[in-house]
């Protein structure tokens, strides 16, 4: 049985991922802000460093998988948090644990979003993120730019959210060949709208906006994707069954992306 690290594993998609991996007999370490095996704030470099150090101490012989799932939505009202947690919280942690993945020829799965194909990303910010590497000074520079944006505007929040998820997916694609050559596969899942405690209590306008992103597999209902729909694919991608899959952005949205972007076959 393997050793897997899951971020954001205290609930939602991450929680289901932890649950499924444990049900398969694996040893799973949940990294989250609270109620976790390792409690840390991945929006800060200190938090990431704490996790990297702790995991190295716990598993010096390596880990089999890393699922970078922790993130916040565009409606959280904190643009800097979206940038620091969604992008740097995943990329910096993955880089920091890469040597442990390499020791056991493990794999990494990063959670992106199906919104990356809908044209709302800011290419300039995405370029900054992907160019930043993992240097804290570059994160600080980007945050200084972001703090000038209007974080009370929901569309700005959504745009920054989509930007972080787009940059994540592009980062995965860019490093995948080199990582694979070192024995480490890396892929990303792009979920559609997933049922969460937040979506269960949202107002009519928000529900109407969700309904405008139809989920073909749930046609004729108001049902959203379930966390386990996404978690099952993450577990597959991180497993040896997906040995031939690398650098892939896998949409797990019931067909929303195919509906809205049928001409994008690659």
């Amino acid at each position, binding site marked *: 049985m393997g050793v897997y690290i899951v971020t954001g594993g205290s609930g939602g998609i991450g929680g289901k991922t932890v649950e499924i991996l444990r049900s398969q007999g694996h040893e799973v370490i949940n990294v989250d802000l609270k109620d976790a095996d390792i409690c840390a704030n991945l929006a800060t470099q200190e938090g990431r460093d704490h996790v990297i150090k702790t995991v190295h101490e716990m598993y010096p012989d390596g880990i089999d998988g890393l699922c970078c799932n922790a993130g916040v939505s565009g409606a959280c009202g904190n643009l800097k948090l979206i940038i620091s947690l969604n992008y740097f919280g995943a990329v910096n942690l993955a880089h920091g644990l890469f040597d442990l993945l390499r020791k056991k020829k493990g794999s990494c799965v990063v959670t992106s979003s199906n919104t990356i194909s809908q044209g709302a990303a800011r290419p300039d910010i995405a370029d900054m993120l992907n160019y930043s590497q993992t240097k804290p000074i570059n994160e600080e520079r980007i945050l200084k730019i972001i703090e000038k944006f209007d974080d009370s505007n929901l569309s700005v929040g959504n745009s920054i959210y989509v930007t972080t998820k787009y940059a994540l997916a592009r980062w995965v694609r860019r490093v995948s060949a080199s990582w694979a050559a070192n024995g480490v596969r890396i892929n990303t899942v792009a979920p559609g709208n997933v049922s969460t405690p937040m979506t269960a209590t949202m107002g009519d306008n928000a529900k109407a906006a969700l309904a*405008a*992103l139809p989920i*073909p597999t749930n046609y004729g209902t108001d049902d959203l994707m379930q966390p386990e729909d996404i978690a099952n694919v993450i577990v597959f991608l991180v497993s040896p069954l997906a040995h031939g899959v690398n650098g892939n952005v896998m949409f797990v949205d019931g067909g929303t992306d195919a*509906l*809205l*972007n049928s001409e*994008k076959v690659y």
Partner: protein
Amino acid sequence: MTLIRQYVNAMVNRDSVALSKIFSETAIFVDYCPKDSGRPLIHAYGPEGIDMFFRNQFLFRKFEITDPQIVSDTQAYYYAIYNGYHIRAIATIQEFSDDGEIKRLVVRPA
């Protein structure tokens, strides 16, 4: 009412359900106009697909039409607006199903 008029009415009223009901089970909707603005063409298959696609487009105001002119039982001109980009378009019903529904409708720059 002719199918082309029902099509135009549904587009003007931004009614994806009414739009989907005039298409047959295996219908194809193709719109080449977005290519003029550097975007991929639009392809939607089947009434459910057409309903879902245009529900998204109408609600997020990505697409609308204005100034329609029905010129025959199978053709209509209008300005198609894609994310604010106006293109003069002609919609043509190219094929009907045995049940009299639209089986293939193609939109091209006019």
